[in-house]
């Protein structure tokens, strides 16, 4: 997907669940020009940095430049984190033109 600077969160949205192996991603509009991630995870000490980086990269690849993301991780794999972030971004922005041809 093309990075578009005018893409923004039009409505708070969420994706994912609190079930084991999943991650709940909640997105709200951000005021700063950053992607701020607040993570709760039982493995935050071990993998917190990687999880936050994975979330930030997925949000940026989607084309969102500012948002506040609350994430509750229940041991999700990277591919699950990316899928949930994209789903939440789509719901929050109304943009559903995900490029299925790009790398996952």
């Amino acid at each position, binding site marked *: 997907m093309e990075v578009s600077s005018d893409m923004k969160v039009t409505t708070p949205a969420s994706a*994912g669940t609190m079930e084991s*192996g999943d991650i709940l991603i909640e997105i709200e509009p951000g005021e700063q020009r950053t992607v701020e991630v607040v993570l709760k995870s039982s493995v935050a000490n071990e993998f917190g940095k990687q999880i936050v980086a994975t979330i930030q990269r997925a949000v940026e690849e989607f084309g969102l430049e500012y948002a506040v993301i609350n994430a509750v991780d229940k041991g999700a794999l990277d*591919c*699950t984190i990316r*899928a*949930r972030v*994209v*789903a939440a971004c789509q719901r929050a922005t109304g943009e559903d033109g995900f490029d299925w041809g790009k790398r*996952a």
Partner: protein
Amino acid sequence: MTKLRRSMLFVPGNNPGMMSDAHIYGSDALMFDLEDSVTLREKDAARLLVYHALKTIHYGECERVVRVNPLNTPYGKADIEAMVAAGVEVIRLPKTETAQDICDTEAEIMRAEQKYGIPIGQTRMMAAIEGALGVINAYAIATASPRLVAIALGAEDYCANLKTTRSLEGSELQYARGAIVVAARAAGIDCIDTVYSDVNNEEQLIKETQAIKQLGFDGKSVINPRQIKPVHRVFTPTHEEFVKAQRILAASREAEQRGSGVVALDGKMIDRPVVIRAERTLELAYASRTVFEEEEL
């Protein structure tokens, strides 16, 4: 080597916990479901989840099947595009009623293959027959595309359509099962039976599996990993069957060398159909070698 489809494990498409380790239970195929197990408001999230899982997780030797939503829903086209792009092996079409359903789905698959640079024809198809019209059209469906590897019976919808319910002895499914096996064999593809949904009743699962194997089915859909081993046990030749098949083929080869068309083994005539069955037994035994070796111990 024969491709085994003894068991196909259903995996709800919006459950990442189940998707991450679905392959460790040893089923021959995994069927990620985007259809009935996913609520309408989660269709988008499930599609993304299965797409990312297929692109990332190595499912070993399990055949990866995705049940997409029908094309007459707002989700079908997007499901097919995403799954083909992810490189899924088999697209399973639910509620197939006519050969045209297969043609329409194939057109969407081909469009996606072209768009994402995937070799045309690489994505295979499976059709689930879940209603009276589908059963009537089973042979036309089974021969509608060279991509089809199997047809499967979906009994819950079929019974609702027939205005009946499922029973232990399965009399309501006799006609559909027979029709589907015959159609699949005539078309030269596999046939897979419906699920047995009482996970706690292994005895009845085994009985039902023995019955559908006797009808000619290649395998059964399962909804719980616990159902995989009992189903495999029914479909795997026993040591005695394996040895007998070897003796039949040896006797047949010997007769061939002597120039004789007919041969007897243990007082019974060995003719062509017996030899074909013995070959099939050996194929199954070799294809399921790990399970077979376990049973030999």
